[in-house]
């Protein structure tokens, strides 16, 4: 990694207060009450995963933090600011970026347009050149239609485009889903590099092995609630408990 790249990365502050504090988060899809009480703390520069079975509410948690779900309550404090009553676009402007599970690559936009789409919200985002050093494949495909890329390249594009904006908290929803092992490794290395540069990351993962290779801590989500938190360093001791939660 170049020194210049390091210099442009978001700087970590010395404050010990969590960057993101979620308390008693509840959310609804229409009439159905899907989140019943999510409590998460994420410190600056951490990588934290949300683990849990299918339908436990992990994706919904990310969407609720991002303000995408219209009906939600509780508290989401980011950099000391309550976000609960703000629309998604203001939450984005506060410095949170979301990479959806379905990747959200726009088919009527070229790769270049997809990459440049999210507006800058803060100073300190990565340069386009730096994004190409992380994901060299993108550079050769700039004029292609966004959805003509392979699944792995689309995932790189989906992550790459939110690195430009200066957002310092990244919400990544299952970035490794459906990808070949070699691509999963590349995404894992990228997450490690982003962490090194001061990005804070909340990751939803089904791939427990992958999660344990990149994360500092894991929150367990069950039926719309956070039921446990396990430090990655304590993972060995808790493996039996974890298997019981995840049913693997």
């Amino acid at each position, binding site marked *: 990694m170049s020194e210049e790249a390091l210099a442009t990365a978001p700087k970590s502050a010395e404050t010990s207060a969590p960057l993101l504090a979620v308390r008693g988060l509840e959310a609804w899809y229409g009439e159905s009450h899907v989140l019943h009480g999510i409590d998460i703390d994420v410190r600056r520069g951490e990588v934290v995963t949300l683990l849990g079975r299918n339908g436990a509410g992990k994706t919904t948690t990310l969407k609720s933090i991002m303000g995408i779900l219209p009906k939600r309550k509780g508290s989401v404090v980011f950099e000391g600011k309550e976000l609960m009553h703000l629309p998604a676009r203001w939450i984005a402007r506060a410095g949170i970026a979301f990479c959806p599970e379905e990747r*959200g690559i726009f088919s009527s936009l070229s790769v270049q347009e997809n990459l440049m*789409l999210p*507006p800058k919200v803060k100073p300190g985002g990565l340069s386009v050149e730096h994004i190409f050093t992380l994901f060299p494949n993108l550079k050769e495909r700039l004029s292609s239609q966004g959805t003509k890329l392979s699944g792995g390249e689309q995932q790189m594009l989906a992550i790459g485009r939110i690195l430009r904006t200066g957002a310092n908290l990244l919400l990544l929803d299952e970035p490794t889903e459906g990808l070949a092992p070699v691509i999963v490794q590349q995404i894992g290395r990228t997450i490690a590099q982003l962490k090194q540069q001061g990005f804070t990351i909340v990751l939803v993962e089904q791939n427990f092995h992958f999660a344990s290779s990149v994360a500092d801590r894991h929150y367990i989500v069950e039926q719309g609630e956070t039921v446990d938190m396990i430090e990655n360093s304590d993972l060995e001791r808790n493996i039996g408990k974890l298997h019981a939660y995840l049913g693997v």
Partner: protein
Amino acid sequence: MFELIGIPPQALFGQLLLGVINGAFYAMLSLGLAIIFGLLNIINFAHGAQYMLGALVSWMLLDYLGGSYWWALLLAPVTVGVSGVILERVLISRLYHLDHLYGLLLTFGLALIIQGLARNYYGISGLPYAIPPELSGGQNLGFMFLPNYRGWVVIASLVVCLATWFVIEKTRFGAYLRAATENPTLVGAFGINVPRMITLTYGFGVALAAFAGVLAAPIYSVNPNMGADIIIVVFAVVVIGGMGSILGSIVTGFGLGIVEGLARVFYPEGSAMMIFVIMAIVLLVKPTGLFGRTA
């Protein structure tokens, strides 16, 4: 060659020109409809009434205030566009969470009200609007006589259509617009103000209709029913080109105008239904329209 098929060239080129002129209006109107449908998911049935308002505002500007055609070309789209912005904010924006049908009913109702009011105050005989002196007269091209004003209409509409296409396909704002057409939620989650973009897009689409109305005023005279007459054909054009396709509506608009013109020469009895026959065939063969994306 013309003797061979038994059509005098004046008649052929005359009808072709008429076809291109009609095509210019089809293109401008279907372009606005396509943009509005793409982003708002609203079938804007008030489009014809807004086109008529463009012509009517030009007439009022001239008759009440002495404002020239050139002022009308600027002020009528702005006035009608602003009314569109207010309409979207106050009424249409309340319907986005409902079925398409409600937007159609609302805008259809508005069209009836606007046209009814215009009929009530201005009658149905049509108000004359003179060709601006700068564009009177014409050119003898050898094979036909081209009135200057008609040449101007073709050029002005081409410029406006191509500029719109350029902004949507080649600029950053256009990329926002295309992205928001696909997935407004995600575009909002990137920090872009999608509701404002929707409002401005509706205002622009409506202003485009009003611009077409100003161009039409000296050709067709200003009539409260002028929009209702043309809008049915324009909807057929949008269906043939493919709902929501920008280039599709421009190409189809001009193309169908020309086809209609040719039909008037070779098979006058069928010219009025020509576009609808084409629509039926296109719907059978390619239901998404000639330029529509297959999902």
